[in-house]
């Protein structure tokens, strides 16, 4: 007992800051295929160690190994690869469009494409995601039109949200994508409520809640876990741990719990960690959790261990708070490269076909962008009307808003 009598205040720090050499030697990574796959009706108390391991399917040689492998056909994997490549290209074009002044703001997924793209394929039509701002792969992988996404990003005359919402805060009930708020963590408990409603209605649909590592510190995260646990809600509780909450390393939100998945243990919720850069592992774990929800076995908490290779948003510069080379040192690699190598290993893909696909996707994205821009961009061309600003707040416009609209001359 050193220094008895004098209290010391503890503030966690990341291992390395700018100028230092990236070091992930403290990240313990289980070998691919080494984590068992329990039955979905497993007693949560017997799998508590899974909250501290990492489920992985793709090994260093690009082979799919272990009990979580074998769920997806080559065709499905090729489609998944295309979704991730599309999302990355979409991001690059929109990031550039933001720099060109065509919109105010953008958030990309660089390095995290597998999480939302693979998860979407584990759901059924009618299921509902309550996403954060970094799950556009849910839309891409469900065939939501890129032009519509871009119209929203540009807040142009064809924006389905009439210019009312920040770029990338999409909404599509049809595609199981709940309106993104821009607030943090609020959607997590809403997802649980949606799932409760589905159970109350004796429906078969499930919900998926999404949150980032930093926002797990919000009280709504804990509200969600209490309600999900109490009512055994049919919901998959996703935590995307991309290591960084803007400039704040994950240790500030995580505290002493070891992992974010471990947050679920106190609620008796089965809690798994998965390699978020492994398309096959993400899909397999999502499928397991979704099946549990659908079979009345209740919620599952899943932590996706990944790395935000890009900036937090178009307003952020990560070089101010982490080494520039940290992304390259991330031990779980890049999700697109890993799936590509796996497919090449299977003999269904090649570098040439990959390059060809990249070119095709770029053409498709550029064509969508041209079409979207024909409807206007934030500061040029067609835009939503001033009248749109007043409408749609209530089902029926109340008298005071009608008076204000008249004052505004619209």
């Amino acid at each position, binding site marked *: 007992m050193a220094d008895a009598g004098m209290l010391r205040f503890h503030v966690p720090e990341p291992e390395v800051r700018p100028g230092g050499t990236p070091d992930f030697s403290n990240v313990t990574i289980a070998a691919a295929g080494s984590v068992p796959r329990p039955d979905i009706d497993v007693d949560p108390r017997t799998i508590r160690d899974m909250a501290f391991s990492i489920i992985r399917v793709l090994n260093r040689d690009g082979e799919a190994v272990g009990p979580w492998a074998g769920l997806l056909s080559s065709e499905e994997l090729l489609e998944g690869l295309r979704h991730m490549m599309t999302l990355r290209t979409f991001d690059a074009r929109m990031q550039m469009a933001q720099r060109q002044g065509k919109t105010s703001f953008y958030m990309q997924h660089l390095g995290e494409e597998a999480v939302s793209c693979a998860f979407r394929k584990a759901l059924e039509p009618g299921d*509902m995601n*309550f996403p954060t701002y970094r799950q556009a792969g849910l839309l891409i992988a469900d065939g939501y039109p890129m032009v519509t996404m871009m119209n929203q990003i540009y807040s142009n005359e064809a924006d*389905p*949200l*009439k210019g*009312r*919402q920040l770029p990338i*805060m999409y*909404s*599509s*009930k049809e595609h199981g994508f*709940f*309106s993104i*708020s821009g*607030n943090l963590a*609020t959607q*997590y*408990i*809403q*997802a*649980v*409520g*949606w*799932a*409760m*409603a*589905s*159970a*109350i*209605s004796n429906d078969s649909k499930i*919900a998926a809640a999404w949150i980032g590592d930093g926002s797990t510190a919000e*009280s*709504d995260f804990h*509200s*969600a876990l*209490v*309600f999900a646990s*109490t009512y055994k809600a049919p919901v998959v509780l996703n935590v995307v741990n991309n290591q960084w909450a803007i400039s704040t390393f994950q240790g500030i939100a995580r505290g002493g719990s070891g992992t974010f998945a471990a947050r679920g243990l106190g609620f008796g919720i089965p809690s798994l960690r998965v390699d978020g850069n492994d398309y096959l592992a993400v899909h397999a774990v999502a499928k397991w959790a979704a099946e549990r929800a659908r079979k009345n076995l209740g919620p599952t908490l899943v932590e996706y261990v990944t790395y935000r290779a890009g900036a937090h948003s178009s307003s952020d510069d990560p070089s101010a708070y982490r080494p520039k080379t940290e992304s390259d040192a991330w031990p779980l690699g890049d999700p697109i490269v890993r799936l590509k190598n796996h497919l090449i290993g299977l003999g269904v893909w090649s570098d040439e076909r990959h390059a060809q696909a990249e070119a095709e996707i770029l053409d498709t994205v550029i064509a969508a962008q041209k079409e979207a821009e024909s409807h206007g961009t934030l500061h040029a061309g067609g835009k939503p009307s001033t009248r749109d600003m007043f409408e*749609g*707040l*209530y*089902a029926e416009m*109340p*008298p*005071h808003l009608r008076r204000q609209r008249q004052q505004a001359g619209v």
Partner: protein
Amino acid sequence: MPRRTMIEAIRDAMDVSMGRDEKVVVFGEDVGFFGGVFRCTQGLQAKYGKTRCFDAPINESGIVGSAIGMAAYGLKPCVEIQFADYMYPAYDQLTQEAARLRYRSNGDFTCPIVVRMPTGGGIFGGQTHSQSPEALFTHVSGLKTVVPSNPHDAKGLLIAAIEDPDPVIFLEPKRLYNGPFDGHHDRPVTPWSKHELGEVADGHYTVPLGKAAIRRAGSDVTVLAYGTMVYVAQAAAEETGIDAEIIDLRTLLPLDLDAIVASVKKTGRCVIVHEATLTSGFGAELSALVQENCFYHLEAPVARVAGWDTPYPHAQEWDYFPGPARVSRALIETMEA
């Protein structure tokens, strides 16, 4: 016609709504088996089962947040916050989520929820069981705010709120639950069974949101009030002999501005009464609207009687509560101005 307390009327509104529409669900702290600390949901779980009426964890953000998710699914949740003073953990969910969901998604998702909460003091509840936070809701674009003053209205307004396609804050003046309290705390309260507004018809009826009611017609001065203050104002009018026209606003947003303007233009004088703190209270909005719309008809400054700008105290409850003496003084001063 049967007479009911306000508690019974509110319970009947939920009963009727749950009976008519299986999408209506009711939950909150102590709301299920026990029937709520004020007993507003008594018997609903036994009648409709615990998937339609159930207990919630002590977590207001969770109660409102989950209700928003249920509404997005297609249910019509009517939830209880045990005291309005407990709503602050849910304020983010109410103001930035429930209020804006229709707008931000352009109608892709909507939020037809009702959030009931007992409001106001007069029961020695101290600073955490006495607050009147209505202005914190009327200031938020996208919410509707309702404050009934009697059993008849409480039932009709609550059914209208449950059937409304948008989020409604339903503030229940707890001092009125058992009778029309007029601020004379040293006298017994007349029970609702002896009051004509205790008459509550069986079955389904609505009182439309956004319509005020004239509780006392008069020609000298207009009193704008809601909730408990309606009866305090009536007592003050009787005790001063001033012929006040007392308007019970019933809904603060949308507000029945036409009724207010018509009355003030007739009387030329206006006194605004509420139990909530004065500064930036809803009375400030009312005062500004009267000034903007009735300036050339006013014969006296618009007066406000409100709770003092302090937390609601415990021992000094009746020094704090804007009772009939303070309202009477404001009426006299407004008449003499």
